[in-house]
């Protein structure tokens, strides 16, 4: 049942990402697509792939938000204090499950893993390389933004 709901959510968010006019909403729908994909990976038993999908998705979406804001040429709007307070409250509420709930079995599986095992058998090298790739992407975008701020000279 959960897999069916997730697959429906995957398709719906993919359609929304493609057909929404506003760029920011479209990227938010793409975030839902990545989230549904990661959850499907978890339920399929591919935990590491889900973690990678989540990490890559977060990096891609952060840069996409930047690019979307750059490409849409919208008027900048100030965030109201009420909105800021709402965002802080939402962050607090979302952090409550992480404080009061725990997932059974996760701590036991990582308790006796040495660094060499984590690096080679648990593909820690891949995590490091992936982080380097995302860092390069962020640096590239920062350079482009810097060039744009300098007037493209």
């Amino acid at each position, binding site marked *: 049942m959960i*897999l*069916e709901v997730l*697959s429906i959510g*995957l*398709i719906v968010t*993919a*359609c929304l*990402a*493609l057909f929404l006019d506003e*760029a920011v909403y*479209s*990227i938010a729908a*793409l975030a839902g*697509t*990545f989230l549904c*994909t990661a959850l*499907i*990976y978890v339920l*399929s*038993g*591919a935990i*590491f*792939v889900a973690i*990678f*999908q989540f990490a*890559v998705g977060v*990096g*891609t979406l952060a*840069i*996409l938000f930047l*690019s*979307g804001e*750059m*490409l*849409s040429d919208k008027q900048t709007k100030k965030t109201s204090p009420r909105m800021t307070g709402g965002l802080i409250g939402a962050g607090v509420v979302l952090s409550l499950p992480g404080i009061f709930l725990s997932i059974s079995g996760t701590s036991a599986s990582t308790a006796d893993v040495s660094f060499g095992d984590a690096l080679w058998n648990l*593909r820690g090298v*891949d995590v490091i*390389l*992936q982080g380097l*790739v*995302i860092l*390069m*992407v962020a640096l*590239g*975008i920062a350079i*482009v933004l810097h060039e*744009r701020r300098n007037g*493209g000279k």
Partner: protein
Amino acid sequence: MDFVIVSIVMLVIGIYGLLTKRHLLKVFISVELIATGATLNFVTLASAIGKGLGEAFLILAFSTDTAVSAVILALLVVVSKKYGTSDISEIVSKQDDGEGEVEV
């Protein structure tokens, strides 16, 4: 639940977006949807076999996908900066008019 069909649907949605959408960001999102469909298919088949080798290859595919996304995004930003628009039709018409050409 057959996720091969879901991945095919994702592939079709992405190809439809590539063929019909004219905004550069939507084209990039279409590429991402195609990559998501391909990886979903890969994960489903790898987990059905039950070996970790498929997941290892998939992590390599993620790295490649991220690099491709970085290159596409860089090209997207450069092109939109050069021509002043994100519409592919306008970019092509400006190219036909000779705007934005690099002087050698």
